[in-house]
């Protein structure tokens, strides 16, 4: 036994080598972990938590049950499918909840929440708050019905019943132009109110086209950058980077000045006689304007990854193909191009994902037909304060991006992507 112990290799201080090596490995791992810890913490705080919170916000429905706890309980066993109102107990609970909420100043939140589902709820609750404060004793039902006849409408109660749970699917339904009818069945929004599907599909196809246009325009530029002698390519690189460093708003506004009907481009075309003064073209505040401005703004995101990949392709490859008898075209298509696919993939993914999330540029130049889904997310975050719907729209967008990413991975393989 002692003999085998002695055969174990030991370091100078007598610790078995295996243990010592293991310790060193653990130490270096901990060091490595400590180095990435700030990034992990940052990702968690700045990225994962907000996204998790946003996902939750799209189904969070605590407003009604937390502000109207008594009513939520009292109408639990009421049958919304029937055609009769809840009983006196539910009306008493309602009066107490309204009185409490009126005192706590939370009544408006319930009204606004339910108003998303049914126009008119906001004013009903506003009105009821003041009047219900005067109710001191039974009969509750009779007095509540006197406040507003909508309290005698079964559909009002069905809505409260439906939205008295802690979670709701209403925001997600609204985000895809669906809604619940009075019988809690999922139906399409009336045609006059359908917008989001159109916007999602418009955002996707326009972003797709923007990506293709960026590729068509960016590929030759990147090729030139990668193959020209350094002194020329540096100059060209500055031309690519200069707009990249310019403020987004400045670039967008410049396009307005250039493209508007009284703008530089139209003036020029009138001057050379291409169009008449009365026939000036509408080049902005429509889809065309969005395409032009977005392609220009996103072009560097296509050129830079393409360039960094092309830079690594040895010119010897094409030369070898030529020497083996390939025409310049064949050599380019069969030998050079396949080597750039990783850059093409990276550029396309980058441009596409940036594009579907853009909102300043489409807001300024998109007019009526060239705005994206992000413009509506911004509207609901900033103006209507309907954060649930904004979160649902954002979550759907996130799911769409992830789905497209997986599709890309399946078809092209994400390992083939190269950013530089």
């Amino acid at each position, binding site marked *: 036994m002692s003999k085998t112990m002695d055969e174990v290799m030991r370091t100078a201080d007598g610790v078995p080598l295996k243990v010592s090596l293991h310790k060193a490995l653990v130490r270096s791992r901990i060091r490595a972990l400590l180095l990435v810890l700030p990034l992990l913490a940052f990702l968690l705080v700045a990225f994962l938590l907000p996204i998790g919170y946003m996902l939750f916000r799209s189904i969070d429905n605590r407003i009604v049950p937390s502000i109207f706890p008594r009513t939520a309980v009292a109408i639990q066993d009421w049958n919304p499918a029937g055609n009769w109102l809840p009983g006196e107990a539910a009306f008493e609970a309602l009066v107490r909840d309204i009185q409490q909420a009126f005192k*706590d*100043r*939370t009544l*408006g*939140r319930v*009204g*606004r929440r339910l*108003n*998303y589902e049914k*126009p*008119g*709820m*906001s*004013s009903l609750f*506003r*009105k009821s708050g*003041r009047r219900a404060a005067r109710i001191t004793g039974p009969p509750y039902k009779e007095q509540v019905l006197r406040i507003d006849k909508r309290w005698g409408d079964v559909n009002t109660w069905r809505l409260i019943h439906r939205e008295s749970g802690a979670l709701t699917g209403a925001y997600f339904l609204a985000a895809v132009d669906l809604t619940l009818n009075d019988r809690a069945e999922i139906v399409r*929004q009336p*045609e*006059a*109110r*359908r*917008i989001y599907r*159109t*916007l999602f599909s418009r955002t996707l196809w326009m972003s797709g086209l923007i990506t293709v246009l960026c590729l068509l325009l960016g590929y030759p530029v990147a090729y030139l950058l990668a193959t020209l002698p350094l002194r020329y390519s540096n100059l060209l690189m500055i031309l690519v980077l200069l707009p990249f460093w310019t403020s987004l708003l400045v670039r967008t506004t410049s396009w307005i000045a250039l493209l*508007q*009907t*009284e*703008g530089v481009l139209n003036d020029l075309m009138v001057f050379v006689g291409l169009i008449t003064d009365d026939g000036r073209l509408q080049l902005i*505040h429509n889809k065309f304007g969005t395409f032009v401005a977005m392609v220009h703004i996103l072009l560097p995101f296509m050129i830079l990854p393409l360039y960094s990949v092309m830079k690594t392709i040895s010119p010897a490859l094409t030369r070898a193909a030529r020497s083996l008898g390939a025409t310049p075209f064949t050599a380019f298509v069969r030998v050079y191009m396949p080597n750039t696919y990783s850059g093409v993939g990276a550029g396309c993914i980058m441009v596409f994902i940036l594009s579907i999330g853009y909102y300043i540029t489409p*807001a*300024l130049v998109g*007019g*009526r*037909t060239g705005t994206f889904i992000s413009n*509506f997310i911004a*509207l609901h*975050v*900033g*103006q*209507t*304060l*309907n*954060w649930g719907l904004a979160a649902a729209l954002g979550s759907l967008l996130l799911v769409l991006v992830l789905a497209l990413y997986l599709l890309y991975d399946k078809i092209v393989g994400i390992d083939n992507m190269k950013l530089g």
Partner: protein
Amino acid sequence: MKRILTSMALAAAVALAGSAYAQNLNIVSWGGAYTASQQKAYHDPYMKANPGVKIVNHDLGSGALAKLRAEVESGKVTLDLIDMTAADAIVACDEGLVEQVEPDKWLAAAPDGTPASKDFFAGTLSVGGTNCFIPQIVYSTTFGYRTDAFKGAQPSSLADVFDLKKFPGKRALEKRPNNNMEWALIADGVAAKDVYQMLSTDEGVARAFAKLDTIKDQVVWWTKGAQPPQLLADGEVAIASAYNGRLFSAIIEKKQPIAMLWDWQNFDLDGWVVPKGTRNLAAVKKYLRFATDTQRLADQAKYISYGPARHSSAGRVGKHAELGVDMKPHMPTDPANSKTVLLSNYVWWADHQTELNDKFNAWLAK
């Protein structure tokens, strides 16, 4: 190490003492000419009279509502006072994000002793059935047109805005249903008092869209207040709806060939709300008492053409501080300009905003 710690503690102590000495008030407003007018009329004189207070301006514009909600929900309120439109203030009040105001306790009486609750324009302190809003100004969304766009007769009524035959040329309208729906119905012959009742029905909404359809191809839709004067100045559009103060600045200060069309201007209010949970409530109240008194509101009109929201201020509106122009004829509240006025029904809009936003955007996309 010890020395570093000591000096850090010292620095912290100095910083603390400094902040206790000079009290910062974080005031949110719209930026540009509007904040400048508040700076000159309210902030500067207040800071002069109260050397311990430092007012810091934050230009959040229409982003204020979202920021306010984020702060109140997270429990860390850094904003002390926010300038917002009445419509936003109603939302903030309904959501419980702002303090309730007791007008006669908080606000100064008029010089003749009329209490604030009587001196502010009727109903403006309780706009939309809320009690969180202290109005400062009456502004209007009205029309401006290029004086060189039409030969002969110039547009003079709301009907002319919708008349492409008599007044051909592009229009600029705000990209939201508010005002546009009301204007469409009035231009279509509906009496102003029936507008909201009509808009509550599907037929009424369809009728408004049908009227808007007649000019739809010719409309450039704007989202930021700075856009319509620019569109007019560039000659991109012949007639534009815009905030009257922006048009004033384009016409009087920048001397553009633009004229006002006041017919059926929409009166709207802009004023203060106090974020719930501000750490400086006492200081905010003190500032508010000063900044909303009769003279201060009248002073603001020296710098921008918005009407003060108090009866007692109207008589004190004088000349523009720099241009020397008499400001009265440029006020939306001037009798000559306000023969026909549209008043937004805030309660109605609170009920129907979601629905009409959807319908309006669906209509736009068609």
